[in-house]
């Protein structure tokens, strides 16, 4: 009973940071790539370079690097004072192992490197070399996602037989709930369906502020009632970003709770399947794009958001501000519809929205009402995230439209352009359009391969125009990510405007101070 009375007080004194996330979370660096996984990885592991707040890479485990003339060889020199959580020293062999593992397993962020990094060499203990297949301009910033694992520890915990031949399960079983990292925080306990508990790594090779939390808890729930109750009772410091606008208003009203809002370079797309009737007809798609009520979306449903202009959010380097932007024009919509080969009365367009983000239902229903005005029948279906991922894995099961948030994986327009429209992503959750356009693929690859930044950005601009003209997507809005947080309990740099554009790094606990 005493514990009941000692609520918030005890919680604060221990220097604990509690954040809610949409689950599930995968802390294996070769598996996890969504928001909660990235946030966990950012705390548990180290990378060669670290993203600064303007997106540029800063030395981290690597102290310096060189690029060969043909841009195919990248050599990195490592620090020699980095140790993993179990005391083993971090060497180039670990970096090589991590890259090999990531590209072999291929999940999570593996796609950034698979097919690009031909091989990795550990030249000596503190030098590692990556040999690329093709030149890759933004290679440096993709290294934010190469999390370095402890080779010895993983090898000790392989399970054979497994899917990866000699490598057994490649340590996937072990890394579900253990970490093999060197980062500022260590996994103390991971109750897979509930909560990830991490403690500060006292022997971290960088200095961590005294006021940084000793313990960090990532809690897997976005239930409004839970989040509100916890925050009201001082049991939660930062909320997830999926709370409804009504919930955020209520949270804001609590004492000591503020809303942090920032643009993380995420865009909300209505991805249109371009290979099934009737949405395979460009006029039909354009009709839908002209019929959508963009203003209501950014005024009422996601207040504070900006209407998107093409596939790339404007605050990402390489975005082109001259890209055409659709707006609601019912006459134009009807014109386009008349040009299409299909009679809308014969079809029902299915819109799938993601169950974990309740506000998406509002967008879906609004779209349904908008389309009804121009005579297009829409069916709205609520689907849980994992089922969405599965549906989008094959053309036969992909619906007409899926509403998805997506962000760039490294701070350049090319990242989104590639992960959204290149054929390699057609079977993933990042693309429902199924463009499968070889010509476009080639142009995208050529752009990314361009080493000179000016030329590369020009190529990106051309691609954005081309894609927007195809109208494979309804580009709705650029997200303003909102989190409720306890301003009287923590000092959160992101809330004060120091926003990191790389997903997950705004919850790097070592920079957050407990008051």
């Amino acid at each position, binding site marked *: 009973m005493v514990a009941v009375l000692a609520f918030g007080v005890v919680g604060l004194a221990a220097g604990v940071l509690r954040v809610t996330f949409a689950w*599930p979370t995968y802390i294996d660096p070769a598996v996890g790539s969504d928001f909660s996984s990235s946030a966990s990885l950012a705390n548990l592991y180290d990378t060669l370079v670290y993203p600064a707040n303007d997106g540029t890479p800063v030395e981290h485990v690597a102290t310096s690097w060189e690029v060969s003339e043909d841009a195919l060889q990248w050599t990195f020199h490592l620090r020699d004072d980095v140790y993993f959580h179990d005391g083993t020293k971090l060497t180039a062999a670990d970096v090589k192992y991590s890259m090999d593992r990531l590209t072999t397993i291929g999940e999570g962020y593996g796609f950034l490197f698979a097919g690009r990094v031909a091989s990795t060499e550990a030249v000596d203990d503190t030098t590692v070399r990556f040999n690329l297949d093709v030149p890759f301009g933004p290679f440096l910033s993709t290294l934010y996602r190469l999390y370095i694992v402890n080779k010895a520890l993983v090898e000790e915990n392989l399970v054979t037989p497994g899917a990866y031949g000699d490598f057994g399960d490649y340590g996937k079983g072990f890394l579900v709930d253990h970490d093999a990292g060197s980062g500022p925080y260590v996994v103390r306990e991971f109750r897979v369906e509930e909560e990830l508990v991490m403690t500060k790594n006292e022997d971290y090779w960088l200095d961590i502020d005294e006021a940084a939390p000793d313990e960090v808890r990532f809690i897997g729930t976005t239930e409004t009632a*839970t989040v509100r*109750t916890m925050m009201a009772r001082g049991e939660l410091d930062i909320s997830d970003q999926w709370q409804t606008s009504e919930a955020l208003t209520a949270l804001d009203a609590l004492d000591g709770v503020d809303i942090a809002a920032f643009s993380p370079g995420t865009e909300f797309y209505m991805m249109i399947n371009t290979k099934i009737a009737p949405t395979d007809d460009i006029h039909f798609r354009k009709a839908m794009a002209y019929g959508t009520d963009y203003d209501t979306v950014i005024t009422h449903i996601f207040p504070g958001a900006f209407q998107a202009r093409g596939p790339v959010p404007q605050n990402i380097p390489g975005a082109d501000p001259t890209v055409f932007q659709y707006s609601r024009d019912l006459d134009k919509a009807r014109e386009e519809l008349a040009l299409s080969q299909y009679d809308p009365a014969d079809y029902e367009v299915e819109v799938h929205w993601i169950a974990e983000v309740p506000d998406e239902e509002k967008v879906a229903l609004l779209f349904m009402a908008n389309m009804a005005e121009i005579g297009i029948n829409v069916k709205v279906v609520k689907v849980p995230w994992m089922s969405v991922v599965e549906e989008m894995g094959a053309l036969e099961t992909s619906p007409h439209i899926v509403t998805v948030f997506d962000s760039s994986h490294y701070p350049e327009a090319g990242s989104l352009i590639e992960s959204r429209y290149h054929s390699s992503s057609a079977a993933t959750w990042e693309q429902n359009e199924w463009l499968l356009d070889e010509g476009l693929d080639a142009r995208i690859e050529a752009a990314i391969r361009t080493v000179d930044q000016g030329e590369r950005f020009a190529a990106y601009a051309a691609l954005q125009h081309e894609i927007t003209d195809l109208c494979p997507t309804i580009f709705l809005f650029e997200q303003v990510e909102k989190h409720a947080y306890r301003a009287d309990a923590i000092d959160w740099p992101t809330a004060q405007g120091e926003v990191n554009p790389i997903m997950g790094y705004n919850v790097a606990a070592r920079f957050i101070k407990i008051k």
Partner: protein
Amino acid sequence: MSIVKFLARRLVLSVFVLFGLSILIFTISRVLPGDPVRMALGSRAPEWAVENMRREMHLDEPLYKQYVFWLSGAVRGDLGTSLVTRRAVSEDIREFVPATLELALFAAVIMAVFGIILGAVAGRFRDTWIDNVIRVFSYIGVVTPSFVFAILFVLLFGYLLRIFPTIGRLSPWISRPPTVTGLMTIDSIISGNFVALGDALLHMILPALSLALGPLAQQARIARSTVSDNLGKDYILSAKGFGVPGRVVMFKYLLKPSLIPTVSIMGLDFAGIVANAFLVELIFNWPGFSRYGINAMLNKDLNAVSAVVIVLGMLFVIVNIIVDLVVAWLDPRIRLGAERGK
């Protein structure tokens, strides 16, 4: 028929049912469209890993062979890997079943004790204001879905009045007692951590109440009618005529026979509690088996769904058998009949 023969017959039937259930679920899950290997490994996995996995999961073999593999694995404790948690389903089960069991047991105790007491009181004081109050309450209890109770409780006690915790099994600042049984209360007692015991009990009250109120009301109604039926029976009148004190009449003569119908319903009610637990677990963020099962179902995590169905089936079977045994023990007619039958 003797107890042993009765038990044996029930067991055989149950095993039969479980087999049938497993075949049904297995077939449905294998027949559905979708590539489980792609789902497990991700859409960008290299082809050779996919092939390896396919061979390992025996997916290229005929259906009946697959079933045999699955069954032999299941018997050994290997129920496959969950798509959502990415680890062995058996591990998931080991972690989540005790949580739901603990909640269900707590709810069952509340339901049994208070249901019978309230019902007996109402029956004893039939047609008085006590009876009427209890009847109204039991009507409300019966018609209100458990999730409505849960929502109201969260609102009232968790948010407005802030007396009880509404999330999870233990407050974050209490250290968990080492896992022996998985039941938080038992484990706390074993390790002597009474602060944790109190905290765990507090966390259980609201979810258990939400689960228990419906069946409790039902139990009360049944207890009421059997008690009031028996009240008029001759043996009660004669006991009273002999001057046996009221309380003894109540407990010794009235309650025991009245217990029989309630206990027999209890088995069904317990299963109902476990099944309804998913609603309550969702609302209270209780890391239990039912919530895991619902998540698995919504996410089409087929290995997990099959395992959940089988485990719940087994639980149901065990509870029913226990209930039948208890009823047999309680009802001297059955007991005597069994002995005479030997």
